[in-house]
């Protein structure tokens, strides 16, 4: 008897198990996650900070790029002002009005860049005597130097040389070529690395 009684719950269980197999049980709700909002916030903050840093870096790069572009443009403008060629009429070292304007821009650039030194190279067309033209080229270079020093540039910043008719930029036996060759060229011989813009 006792045995039977003891078996009864097992049978019930078995019956119940059988019954269970025959009929679907409702799904058990998943265990609710244990959320640590602090961690989430920290992570978000980390991501945000990275994004901000990246944006700042992009902004900074763009700004640096823009600055560099502006600087380069300013330097190019200063360099162009310093090295712009001036032209002369036949057999003369007289400065034309256009040449004076070009030289005025050099004066501003030289004033903004006190470390800059220039070499003026005087050139001629090929119509005169090869030898006399060396002297004429020297006079043309000296003429530009005199204008610069007359306007406050110290003489030791400007150096002159003549190439006469030895270094033409244009070939041809006509005024178009000759007028290109009657010129002073300007070379930056010192202080040309970090040119400042002309104010």
């Amino acid at each position: 008897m006792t045995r039977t009684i003891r078996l009864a719950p097992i049978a019930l269980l078995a019956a119940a198990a059988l019954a269970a197999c025959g009929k679907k049980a409702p799904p058990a709700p998943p265990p609710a996650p244990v959320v640590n909002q602090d961690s989430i916030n920290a992570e978000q903050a980390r991501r945000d900070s990275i994004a901000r840093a990246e944006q700042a870096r992009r902004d900074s790069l763009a700004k640096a790029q823009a600055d560099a572009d502006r600087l380069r443009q300013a330097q190019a403008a200063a360099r162009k002002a310093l090295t712009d060629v001036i032209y002369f009429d036949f057999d003369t070292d007289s400065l034309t009005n256009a040449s004076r304007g070009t030289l005025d821009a050099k004066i501003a650039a030289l004033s903004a860049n006190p470390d800059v030194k220039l070499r003026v190279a005087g050139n001629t067309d090929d119509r005169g005597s090869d030898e006399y033209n060396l002297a004429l080229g020297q006079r043309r270079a000296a003429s530009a130097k005199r204008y610069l020093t007359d306007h406050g540039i110290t003489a030791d910043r400007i150096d002159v040389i003549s190439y006469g008719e030895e270094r033409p930029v244009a070939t041809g036996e006509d005024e178009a070529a000759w007028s290109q060759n009657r010129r002073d060229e300007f070379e930056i011989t010192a202080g040309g690395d970090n040119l400042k813009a002309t104010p």
Partner: protein
Amino acid sequence: MKRFTCLTLAAVALAAVASPMRAQQDTTRGVRIGLSYQPGVKPGVVVMPVSGSWGDSVQAMLQRDLDFGDRVTVMSGDAVNATATAQGSGGVNFGVWSTLGAAAVVQVALAPTGAHVILYDIAARRVAQMRDFPLGGRYGDAHWRLDVHGMSDEIERWITGVRGIARTRILYVRAGRVYVIDSDGYGAHAVTEAGTVMGPAWSPDGHTIAYSKLGSNGWSIEIRDLDSDAEHTLSATPGGLNMTPAFAPDGKSLAYGHGLENGTDIYVANVAGGPARRVTVGRGTDNVSPSFSPDGSRLAFTSGRNGHPEVYTADIDGSNTELLTPFNFGDQNYRSNPEWSPDGLTIAFQSQLAGRFQIMTITLRDRTVKQLTNDGINEDPSWAPDGRHLVFTSSRTGAKQLFVLDTESGRTRQLTHADGARLAAWSRYLAPTP
């Protein structure tokens, strides 16, 4: 008629001035061939074939040198060659040569160290001159050729009374270097390193040259010993522009143009060193290209002091400056690059005509101007030691080349055949090295 008489008198007077030197040469040289040189009359000369392995070279060089001298007609052609070959190295048949129109016959026999030369006077039927000439160097080399040229020059003097100009060389600039070439166009070679040079000049003895060279701080005058190839810088006026050097006739000093920032003036400095003395006061203008008178007392030079370039002369101390070339105010003409002739009577220069330079001469006595060229652009004349031939730059073939002009006959020959030769300077007679 009266004018003719005046001209004749002038010619006689000039001949009288010129004759003492000739007479002296005649007496010092002993027997001279009975030919008197007359302008426009060129005696016929035959150079006999020369036997030996370099004989044909010697014959060709003598023929060319005598031809280039423009004072004799070197006879050639079948009849002449046949006659010369038939006579060989034996005696000279005066009758046959006389029939062919020869005034003189040159016979050369080569020996190991030189040449034995006989000059026959055909009209007089006798030996006019005979001499042994040492020939240095090795057959065909530069030294040997120079000695053969010296032989030609002496033969020319025997025949015409005037020494030839074959034993000379010419400096010029090409592709930024100074070159030298023999008077007959042989042996062109660079004597300076690659660079940029201008205005070469000879010392009177031919052993030293001067030129201007572009350096990092401008143009300097360089003096170069051709024997040792040593170069040194004239330091009297450092920096800026130093250009167009010219040796004084004594070879001890140089005149040259020097400029910094207030025009270019002519200075004189000793070759050996020391300070420079200023000759011109150009007040900011260009004064360049000096050329000494043969006695060294005056200079001719180019100056732009009156607006455009003209040729002036001045005493060596800068006094007595005179405008030599006449000009009209307002024109664009341009005269430059004077070269005083070795006899002191004439100055050659270049003058722009219709925008092109031409070679001209002007006499110092009466300022008679003569135009010598008209083909292309012609520049930078330099006199041969005979005062008769000029070397100059011409563009007549399209590129700049050197040409030699006989100012008396107008005959012209091309000296260089390499593109871009210019700024020629003719040496004096190059004396044999003792």
